[in-house]
């Protein structure tokens, strides 16, 4: 059965991920590209990127941890065969036929996923939040009032009035997560999802956004992080700026790249501070 790709604001349950990707609304990931430059967004639209092993692992982790019952429909473990031999090649070809569109992960990754899932399940709050989730991977679209742009998001889970996002990482410590937060603009995601889910009526106005970070290696540490309202405001400022830029490009049809004038490129703040401390120019 094919579910039509909706082009209207609303909440859409049971939509496969592939279908969600086809929705016309702008996603946070697309805003990341617009933020780099509208040309990058346009290029990505025209040349979809290959699915990497890391992306597959992330997809498998989401299925395994959030929807363990239906995970076998989405994920399959690759057999251990020597694909240099004829028998191995045949066996793997047979496996690929059987696997279909499911995400294929290695036996080693499957072992890690089992442990990660157990770690999240036995974490006092993370386990409860996921077990009590009232929505899993629900898709929603809303219209940004300021620009009239149709936006979309797909929260991993909604538990009570908490929007949950699962992040697999090699280091879930607060310091490392803070750096990842900035690098991958998770604060923008949090603000975008919160505002979108509120607009779509999925959560109340006082909803919170939580990241459940789970490590991919032993001891499979699990940590839950929330953002301060100040950081959410920073994320909101950034996504509003990106949406404005996107709307401008749609209107003009000009998807510009980096600036053509010469720009100063500064050393990062921390590097300047460190060097200046040595030179005494603080």
């Amino acid at each position, binding site marked *: 059965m094919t579910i039509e790709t909706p082009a209207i604001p609303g909440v859409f349950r049971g939509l496969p991920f592939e279908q969600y990707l086809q929705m016309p609304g702008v996603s946070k990931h697309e805003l990341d590209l617009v933020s780099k430059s509208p040309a990058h967004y346009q290029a990505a639209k025209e040349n979809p990127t290959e699915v990497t092993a890391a992306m597959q692992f992330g997809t498998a982790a989401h299925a*395994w*941890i959030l929807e*363990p*019952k239906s*995970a*076998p429909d989405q*994920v*399959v*473990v690759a*057999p*251990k*065969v020597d694909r240099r031999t004829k028998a191995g090649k045949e*066996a793997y070809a*047979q*496996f690929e036929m*059987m*696997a279909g569109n499911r995400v294929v992960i290695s036996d080693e990754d*499957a072992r890690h996923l*089992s442990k990660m*899932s*157990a770690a*999240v*399940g*036995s*974490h*006092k*709050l993370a*386990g*409860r939040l*996921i*077990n009590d989730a009232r929505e899993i991977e629900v898709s929603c679209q809303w219209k940004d009032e300021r620009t009239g742009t149709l936006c979309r998001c797909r929260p991993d889970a909604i538990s009570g*009035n*908490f929007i949950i996002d699962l992040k697999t990482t090699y280091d879930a410590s607060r310091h490392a997560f803070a750096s990842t937060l900035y690098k991958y603009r998770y604060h923008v995601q949090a603000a975008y999802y919160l505002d979108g889910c509120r607009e779509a009526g999925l959560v109340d106005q*006082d909803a*919170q956004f939580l990241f459940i970070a789970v490590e991919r290696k032993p001891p499979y540490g699990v940590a839950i992080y*929330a953002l301060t309202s100040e950081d959410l405001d920073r994320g909101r400022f950034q996504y509003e700026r990106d949406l404005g830029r996107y709307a401008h490009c749609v209107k003009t049809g000009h998807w510009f790249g980096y600036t053509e004038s010469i720009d100063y490129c500064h050393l990062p703040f921390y590097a300047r501070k460190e060097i200046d401390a040595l030179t005494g120019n603080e």
Partner: protein
Amino acid sequence: MSDIQPLDRGKELWNFASALSRSTIIPKAFQGQPANCFVALDMANRLGASPMEIMQNVYVVHGTPGFSAKYAIGMANKSGVFKGPICFEETGKGDNLSVTAYAIVRETEQRVEFTCDMAMARAEKWTSNPKYKTMPGLMLRYRAATLLIRTSCPEVLLGMHTADELEDVRYAKAAPAMMDDPIAKLNASIEEDEEPKEKDQPEPEEDLPPATQTELPELQVDDIPF
């Protein structure tokens, strides 16, 4: 009677406070703090207590001094206002716990009392103070006795609060902000979960996985010949 005679002149009192502040055997809040020692000396004079006794029983809770509740009870018992010491009656358990502090007024033989219960503690938001979870009986005794003293012989406290009162008020003030924060509520729910529960069923003999443990799906491909 005070060990150190009252000093009438402020300058002499200040000199005494300065000397006292140089002592290393007085509580830390007074060491090197002649102004604090000055206040303690003044209180000692007015209460007829020794400066050391006052210094050992005054606690500063977020900038406000208060007596310890047990010292306040001791002072009331010693004051002669009551015939015999302040006594307590405890009824109910858990959320229904109630404590009455009572005493007999020496002059009138009248029984005076003050009751504090968990309902009052919750309504006043004192229960945000974690001590109401770990030792509710003691906390209610302190509050009931303090309020009995405050209503029956306020002169004993010189208008000061007890440190426990100040702590409760501090928690109560912090409570609305804390309870409005859903993250704080979620974190508080862990503490609630960790509280020991009464066991009404025998322990299972086998080790069972945690209740929240997610069942792992069987993802191995068994039907492929390798």
